[in-house]
């Protein structure tokens, strides 16, 4: 039996889809994985988007953003998580995982928001101010709406990274699809391990499609690339 047949056999086994005798099925693992992801992305967004918008609007602290992004890019997630659990204790494993994932998502969102706000046509911003918008109105009515494509790009990228990395929650005895990968590895059940990887990839694709759909609804048609008749004649 090829690995693909094994994966499909594992995934189509009805026992793996229900929770029996305290062994969680796929729906529960999915719920856990989504929970870790949403929690981390939302917290990171609440921190990084306002901060990035502020830095982008004022232009102060741009070098700080670059520094943070670069240094966090080299962060070893697994090592960080284990360190956090050692410090905080296994009872706070969920908090530790959330912190590790938030730290993963912040640099991406911060850089995306900062770049998005910074790249808004300076003439439009000058016009907004010159027509009598307050600084807050300039940010909320002009800069942020025009930064949305880049902010969404960052949000999608951060979400994908968090979904992939949330696998490590299983290392500190939490759930999520990572369970299958970690358990499959330790029990030498490679069909289980591979099926876990497939589930994580599928979740990532679904999340990407969902966010792309939201982006299409939220971002002004005037900012869409290749929109009908979009020809800049100067």
């Amino acid at each position, binding site marked *: 039996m090829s690995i693909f047949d094994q994966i499909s056999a594992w995934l189509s086994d009805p026992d793996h889809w229900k929770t029996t005798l305290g062994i969680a099925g796929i729906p529960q693992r999915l719920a856990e994985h989504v929970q870790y992801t949403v929690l981390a992305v939302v917290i990171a967004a609440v921190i990084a988007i306002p901060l990035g918008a502020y830095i982008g609007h004022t232009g102060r602290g741009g070098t700080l953003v670059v520094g943070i992004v670069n240094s966090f890019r080299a962060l070893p997630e697994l090592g960080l998580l284990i360190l956090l659990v050692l410090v905080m204790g296994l009872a706070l494993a969920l908090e530790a995982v959330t912190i590790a994932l938030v730290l993963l998502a912040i640099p991406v969102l911060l850089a995306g928001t900062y770049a998005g706000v910074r790249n808004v046509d300076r003439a*439009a911003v000058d016009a907004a101010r010159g*027509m009598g918008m307050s600084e807050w109105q300039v940010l909320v009515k002009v800069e942020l*709406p*025009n930064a949305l494509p880049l902010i969404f790009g960052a949000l999608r990228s951060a979400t994908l990274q968090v979904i992939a990395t949330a696998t490590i929650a299983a290392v500190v005895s939490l759930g999520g699809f990572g369970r299958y990968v970690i358990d499959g590895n330790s029990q030498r059940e490679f069909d289980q391990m591979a099926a876990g990887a497939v589930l994580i990839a599928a979740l990532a694709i679904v999340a990407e499609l969902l966010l792309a759909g939201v982006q299409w609804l939220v971002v002004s048609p005037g900012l869409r690339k290749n929109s009908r008749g*979009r020809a800049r*004649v100067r």
Partner: protein
Amino acid sequence: MIEFQSVTKRYDDGTVAVDELDLTIDDGKITVLVGPSGCGKTTSLRMINRMVEASSGTILVDGADIRSQRPAALRRGIGYVIQNAGLFPHRTVLDNIATVPILLGTKKAAARRRAEELLDTVGLPRELAKRYPAQLSGGQQQRVGVARALAADPPVLLMDEPFSAVDPVVRDDLQEELLRLQSELGKTIVFVTHDIDEAIKLGDKVAVLRVGGKLAQYDTPATLLAKPVDDFVAGFVGRDRGYRALGFLSAHGVEVAPLSTLTLGEPAPVVTGWTVVVDERRRPLGWLSAKSTVEGEIRSADLVAGGSLYVADSTAAGSLRAALDSALSSPSGTGIAVDAEGAVVGGVTADSVLKVLDAARRSGEVPS
């Protein structure tokens, strides 16, 4: 009325952008600030709506110090048009135009109705209302920019090099449009440009600034061309200023002599000199050369291209410059005068233009 009273702008690094500027800008007129880069013209403009704060001195708008109002409130009462229009990419044309009325608390529906009217005012079709800025040409964007500045009907309009990023043909259109609009609206317009020709064409008065932010000369365009105060202004006003000054003198009185014409498709007679060929509505198509050997019907291929046309309407005679140019650019040496419909009414010669100029000089019409 906008008054600059010894206004200075000094930046933190010590550069002086504007130096002790005293300037009175008349109501209902177009005042152009012009000068080379680094002369502080844009800084001066932006100090009026406090986009730049003056270091010292006072600016009064209708007698009130601009610092007596919060910047945002002040700016909502002053129209602002900039280079490249600065439209909001995420908003439709209509919502761009409705921006300031909505900031001022007008209901959205009312603001949009007003915005639709403004599309007519600036000469744009209403079909563009739902488009986004990226779907417009540069000239259209700039018209939307002007409409947006007019939306709240401010008495003062600040225009910072609004037409310098569009191509020359479109720029010419936009300039004509601005003059037409101004004849209807009578706003107080402060206009910044680095293009002296644009300044002379648009300005009721022109302020020439020199590098370092000092006012060099503040006069009507005709006076600026005739009597530049010094070498800097003369140099900046540029070449051919004697010729360009003719643009301010009416060609009233220039003799329009009868001109023999032929109609396209007619059999060619034995030509005795340069002859204008016209279409069936007497609009000029070109010249038949004095040395022409055409036999049979005259076809367009037989014609020599004509020069510029001098529009000699009975209500508004053109300028001496237009009359002289038509004569100078014509292959025959005789300029073609046409009426408002474009039909040939006669010919003008350089001599007849110079005679009128001479008379004008003697009667003191020409500043000297």
